[in-house]
């Protein structure tokens, strides 16, 4: 087995608030192979976005790294200096966000923002960089790229802006693209196109993807492997098709069962959706033991006192549950 492109071992992230320290992310470990599409799924507050920020070296107060190793291509980067991280960002790891309007500079034409990548990381001159920027826009299928390079972000639609973000992120052919809810703010038909585009471009360039989303269906469709996070911990990780067909953790199972899927009603009539009781706990009040225990239908005493250990599953999977089947 070749070295994975990105290996995260036992990552811990702490959140400081009101003179107390809370555990925002606890012993998170996963690996992404070269060119692989890996999905990280969870609801708001589960820690998926800050895990990505940790990989990028972008954690700022009140968040801080509390231990663990982040290994990029065999090299440990969790303690890298800011200058080293700046060299990596854009050229080896890139990130796109949910709201392209806030991620793009509103005062700079989009062509220039793409060209900046070539100038900063590859030392090309501006003229050549602008030409390559136009090419980049063409690659992300923006119509009339020669005119669009002069447009400002506010002149473009949401879908277009996200394409620009992708162009910027992939400009220097990074090894890893981290996408944090890139399509959540877009319309459904545009979302489908953007996802297809990302998958195609990354496959062509050999770029691995870390896809972060709350939409399990989206991630399972796009990625090869999926990890599910709940309240700061990874509770399950499996190949994409398995996680939907045979979820092993009650939370994953709850997610899969609770959302209505197209075609279900025609097949089985309208069934009452299987609810997951309770609410997502706040970081200040994580339950002891297994953090899902107050909401779990299979809960027993041990779940309330002891955090479950990791059980490995076939095909590089894992599950964190006292009662996995």
């Amino acid at each position, binding site marked *: 087995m070749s070295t994975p492109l990105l290996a995260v071992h036992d990552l811990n992230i702490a959140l400081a608030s009101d003179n107390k320290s809370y555990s925002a992310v606890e012993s998170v470990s996963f690996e992404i192979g070269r060119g692989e599409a890996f999905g990280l799924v969870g609801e708001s507050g589960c820690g998926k976005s800050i895990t990505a920020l940790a990989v990028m070296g972008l954690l700022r107060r009140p968040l801080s790294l509390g231990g663990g190793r982040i290994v990029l291509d065999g090299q440990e980067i969790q303690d890298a200096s800011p200058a080293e991280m700046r060299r990596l960002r854009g050229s080896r790891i890139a990130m796109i966000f949910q709201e392209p309007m806030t991620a793009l500079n509103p005062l700079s034409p989009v062509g220039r923002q793409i060209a900046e990548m070539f100038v900063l990381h590859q030392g090309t001159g501006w003229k050549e960089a602008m030409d390559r920027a136009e090419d980049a826009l063409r690659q992300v299928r923006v119509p009339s790229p020669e005119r669009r390079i002069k447009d400002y972000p506010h002149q473009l639609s949401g879908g277009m802006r996200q394409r620009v973000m992708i162009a910027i992120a992939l400009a220097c052919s990074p090894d890893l693209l981290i996408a944090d809810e890139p399509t959540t703010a877009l319309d459904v038909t545009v979302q489908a196109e953007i996802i297809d585009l990302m998958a195609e471009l990354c496959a062509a360039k050999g770029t691995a993807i870390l896809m972060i989303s709350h939409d399990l269906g989206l991630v399972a469709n796009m990625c090869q492997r999926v990890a599910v996070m709940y309240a700061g911990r990874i509770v399950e990780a499996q190949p994409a098709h398995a996680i939907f067909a045979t979820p092993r953790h009650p939370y994953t199972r709850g997610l899969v069962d609770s959302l209505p899927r197209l075609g279900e009603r025609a097949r089985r009539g309208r069934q009452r959706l299987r609810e997951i009781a309770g609410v997502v706990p706040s970081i200040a009040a994580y339950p002891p033991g297994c953090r899902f225990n107050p*909401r779990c239908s299979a809960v027993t005493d041990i779940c309330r006192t002891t955090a479950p250990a990791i059980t490995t599953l076939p095909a590089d999977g894992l599950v964190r549950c006292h009662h996995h089947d």
Partner: protein
Amino acid sequence: MTEPLLRLDALAVHFTLGSALSGGVRTLKAVDGVSLDVAPGECLGLVGESGCGKSTLALAIMGLVPPTQGHIRLNGHELAKRDRMETARTVQMVFQDPYASLNPRQTVRRTLADPLRLHGIANRSEIDHRVMDMLAKVGLRPDHADRYPHEFSGGQRQRIGIARALILQPRLVICDEPVSALDVSIRAQIINLLLELKDELGLAYIMISHDLGVVEHVSDRVAVMYLGRIVEQGGWQEIFEDPRHPYTRALIAAIPDPFHRADDFAKRTKAHGEIASALAPPPGCHFNPRCPMKADRCVSEVPLLEAVASGHRAACHFRDRTG
């Protein structure tokens, strides 16, 4: 045939933007000739993406935005001639954002009791009784009544919003994306609640959502909107199993199916490009620039919403072609 609870007849809502001084007057045709019925106790799913006009349509049905053309009839009576208070007792709305839809300075009790007082119920004990009854119906406890919105989670706030919508015992409730702002793991709770209340209280719903899974689950009939027009309308099963409009097919194809990856059919039926602006909709069929089946006729001639089968209508020149 019983009188439909709500009847929209060629409804149009146009906004004029700009003035002669600032580059000319332009018309935004937010709703452009919509006709549909909602029967008592029926759930109509209204599907569409941004700019399709579904929010404006909801506001027009609520009487908050005056129609430019066409008619809105509630219970047989023209909306414009109805008394505002009477309309409030007939149609209500559940909003999308549970964090912005409750007055942060009012307790739950006051949010629910004030409308009752406003509508002439003076008896204190009756008001109390109805407030408590409604809280129980939406799954909240009596001790929740004297708390403020910020003390509740998103799902609970949405329950309060539902309670408020139902406190005046309306017959039609417009649910505008009721679960899209909620955490995924609690959406099922709210959807189940809405369906239970519908059956228990005999309500009709207009369920506005971009989530086709939710729409298929809850609706009796479905209408698909694009740039102010209804492009397809029919029973839920027909719409999802035999869609006759390319946009409907594109919406369905856009849903990621975790079991079938890189599906060729899906690739063929997906729409490309961006949704046009409602200020400058494409000529002829509004969907033509993005349509995989586009022909010359589509640019020159507006397709009408016509029957494909009984109760199933599509606005496409190629409506008789099956998928």
